[in-house]
């Protein structure tokens, strides 16, 4: 009886892992790494998490959870509320719809997919910033962030694979 309860708890905890990990990454994203110019181009960890889990285990990260992660990021970073929520939801929709294509493909194909996604995200961020400020802004900061995202994806992707292995198989 006791073991059954613990098993349930354990299973629940494992199922929550993708969401909780994403929340932790959103917070880690804020830590100043004391690198010159780092803040302006810090990689978007939550984006990587949403992309990975949407491709591999969308059932463990439902769209409501993605929305909450985006909102949390919006509130903690100084940006406009709703921006990351909208972007992450869109990324999630795109990734879930293309999951079949990426199924069983090598890491490089998944990485290529992420490049496309983060280019789209950079464009969306730039567009939102332009619309909200009413000026035509230089797009470079968004492109720098995009490059950082692409460079950081293999590291985070490796972490996600390790976590993924500990999760229960899909029913």
């Amino acid at each position, binding site marked *: 009886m006791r073991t059954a309860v613990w098993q349930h708890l354990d299973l629940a905890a494992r199922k929550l892992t993708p969401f909780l990990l994403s929340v932790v990454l959103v917070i880690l994203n804020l*830590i100043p790494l004391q690198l010159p*110019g780092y*803040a302006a181009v810090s990689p978007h960890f939550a984006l990587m998490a949403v992309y990975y889990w949407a491709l591999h285990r969308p059932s463990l990260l439902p769209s409501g959870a993605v*929305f909450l992660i985006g909102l949390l990021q919006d509130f*903690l970073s100084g940006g406009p509320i709703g921006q990351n929520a909208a972007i992450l939801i869109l990324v999630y929709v795109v990734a879930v719809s293309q999951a079949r294509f990426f199924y069983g493909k090598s890491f490089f194909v998944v990485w290529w997919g992420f490049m496309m996604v983060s280019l789209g995200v950079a464009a969306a961020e730039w567009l939102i910033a332009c619309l909200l400020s009413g000026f035509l802004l230089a797009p470079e900061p*968004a492109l720098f*962030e995009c490059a950082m995202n692409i460079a950081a994806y293999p590291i985070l992707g490796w972490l996600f694979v390790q976590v993924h292995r500990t999760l229960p198989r899909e029913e």
Partner: protein
Amino acid sequence: MKEKSGSVVRVAAPMRSLAHRFAFLLLLSASIGLLMIGHSDPKIFDETRMALIDTTTPVLDALSRPVATASDAIDHIRELAHLRQENATLKAENARLLQWQHAARTLLSENNQLRTLLNFSGDQKVTSVTARVIGDSSGPFIRSLLVNAGARNGVRRGHAAVTGKGLLGRVASTGERSARVLLISDLNSRIPVLVESTRARAVLAGDNSRRPRLTFVSANAEVSIGSRIVTSGHGGMFPAGLPIGVVAEIGDAGIRIETFASPDRLEFVRLVDFGLEGVIGEKHTPIAQSSGPRK
């Protein structure tokens, strides 16, 4: 039986995908709605934002320390290599600064004498709080910092954030134990400034780049590379004379300022209350009191 369950699946699957699609649309429109609400009233989410930042402050505070320590250690090693050279530079600088100290002392006593003669009322009392930088809440189009001092330390919206070198930004919002500092390089930052030598007025506008732009400079104003830029004190946001930076380039992209204070590798900032109730400063009386008794 088999057939029945099959038909259930056949009906359930499209229903499920429909529900999913509906959820996507709902959440997407909710986010866009939030964007629009936030755009029309930027202050509306401030309280929630600062409450959330307050909650994460202890975590960020703890995590920012080891990072700072590691970066300090790297600095120490790097400094060792340049010790001899740096010593020589510092000695030369020290000699020069001693002369300036002498000049400053003379001027100070002269100033005091003149002030007594004029019955000058003097500047208001300045108080400051030193806070640790715990977060970099910047994105590609936002430049801001989180610090671990808030309302309970006396920090209020509109206080100036300075480093030993110069002005860094201003406090944009405060929580109970944290505050967000909007940097002068942010898109939303506009600061009335003066060219120190010629007293020409201008506005320093952040545009997301490392070097903010000097705008609204009068046509006949003389600005040359190397001119020092200081706050003008207009608008009551900052006191006059806070150092900001020097003119670094004059060209097609406008007049660009290299700021003295840099947000990179920054561990501590000083949040200064100059006792000014400028355009963005909040009154020191809480809103609840001024809007009458609450039921």
